[in-house]
């Protein structure tokens, strides 16, 4: 099996220059259902990678493997130098450096917006209260929600909640941000405000892996677009390569449907 030979990783082997994520022959099954059938990906520092594909293609599962919300069955995932497949790797350390934004926002409903953002920096990173507060205020300004600091999530629209979720993830000062269909649960009129926050983030040089159905966003922002289908990467390249001139017929068929 190729997976066996790829199981050992020498420290320097993760891509030529500055790969922050290296994935080799990743396989993942839920019971007897194999959803990832051998994924190979590298993400460079500062790169914005968009993953598109039909539902059930495994793109969300792949993303969730990158911070070990899902345990992998075989293959290798090295994130920021930490081998996530290794049982001795302390995944909490990796997660502090890898932010994640979910389709369903998952903001904490019992906490005010500001407390949503300061909780992890204070408790996990042990940052002083005032510093965490200042950081949160700054991030709220960045996502355009300064006036909502004392609101509860239920008082916010979906787009506002998702921007809080982005600020909450950024408060940990992550080196990588993972986005799992961040606009799929939003009303059409609030999608734009979330995408614009994400665009700002990309232009600041954040490394981003974005699972999305927003082809327009991928075309505009992505350095690289990956098309996944049935647990495999079918096509990958620059956004113009994959989105304008797809070579694979499954990519072509998918883009015809969504565009």
């Amino acid at each position: 099996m190729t997976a066996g030979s790829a199981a050992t990783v020498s420290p320097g082997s993760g891509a030529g220059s500055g790969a922050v994520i290296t994935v080799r022959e990743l396989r993942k099954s839920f019971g007897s259902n194999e959803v990832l059938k051998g994924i190979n990906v590298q993400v460079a520092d500062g790169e914005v990678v968009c993953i598109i594909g039909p539902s059930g293609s495994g793109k969300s599962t792949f993303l969730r493997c990158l911070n070990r919300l899902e345990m992998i069955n075989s293959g290798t995932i090295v994130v920021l130098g930490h081998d996530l497949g290794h049982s001795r790797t302390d995944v909490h350390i990796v997660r502090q450096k890898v932010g994640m934004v979910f389709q369903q926002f998952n903001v904490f409903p019992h906490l005010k917006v500001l407390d949503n953002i300061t909780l992890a920096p204070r408790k996990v990173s042990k940052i002083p209260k005032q510093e965490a507060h200042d950081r949160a205020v700054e991030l709220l300004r960045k996502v355009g929600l300064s006036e909502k600091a004392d609101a509860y999530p239920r008082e916010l629209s979906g787009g506002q909640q998702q921007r809080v979720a982005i600020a909450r993830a950024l408060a940990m000062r992550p080196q990588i941000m993972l986005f799992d269909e961040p606009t799929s649960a939003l009303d059409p009129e609030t999608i734009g405000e979330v995408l614009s926050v994400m665009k700002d983030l990309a232009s600041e040089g954040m490394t981003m892996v974005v699972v999305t159905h927003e082809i327009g966003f991928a075309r505009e922002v992505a350095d690289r677009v990956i098309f996944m289908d049935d647990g495999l990467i079918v096509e990958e390249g620059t956004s113009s390569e994959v989105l304008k001139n797809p070579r694979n017929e499954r990519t072509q068929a998918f883009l015809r449907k969504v565009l």
Partner: protein
Amino acid sequence: MDGFAQYLPPLAQGLGMTALLVAISGVIGCIAGLILGLAATSPLPPARWASNIYTNIIRGIPPLVILFFMYFALPILFPLLTLSQTLTAVIGLSVYAAAYMGEIVRGSIRAIPVGQGEASEALGMRYYHKFRYVIIPQAMKIILPPGVGFLISLVKASALASVIGYDELTEEGHIVSTLNNQPLNVFLVVAVFYFVISYPLALLGRWYERRLA
């Protein structure tokens, strides 16, 4: 009503005994229930098994039998475990309460969307922080109504402690009424006394529920 002054002191003493029993076993039951509920939702299979076995065995036994077993049967098996009536009553009711509170806690934790735990983990939180600051505060709102309901039923279940000779309110009422032959007056007072314990519990629950909302 001229006997009132005579039979009130023993009834008041019974009220105190009942309040003491419920307070201690209620607190122990809540703490043990929280532990059982956390164990039942633990990622560690042995913790889940242990919690499930305990809960299912205890819930399947009438509390009266738990008290009888602890007071009369346990000393036969283990002579060192000859407990006083007070200790038997407190432990017996605690054991009983823990199983029910554990189920309430387990169900409430289960009711919190999986995404809340995942969001906590994605931020780098470990088990303690995730439960302490995210899961339990949200679960409290769900725990509260059935939890308070159970504590009120624990007030009434405490009357069972009379069978092993713990002189709580019902037992005192029974004794006094056979002595003075005024069951109507005596048990009216007993009923009012039970209400005096359980109604503030209900009010406290309501107040805390509003505070969490």
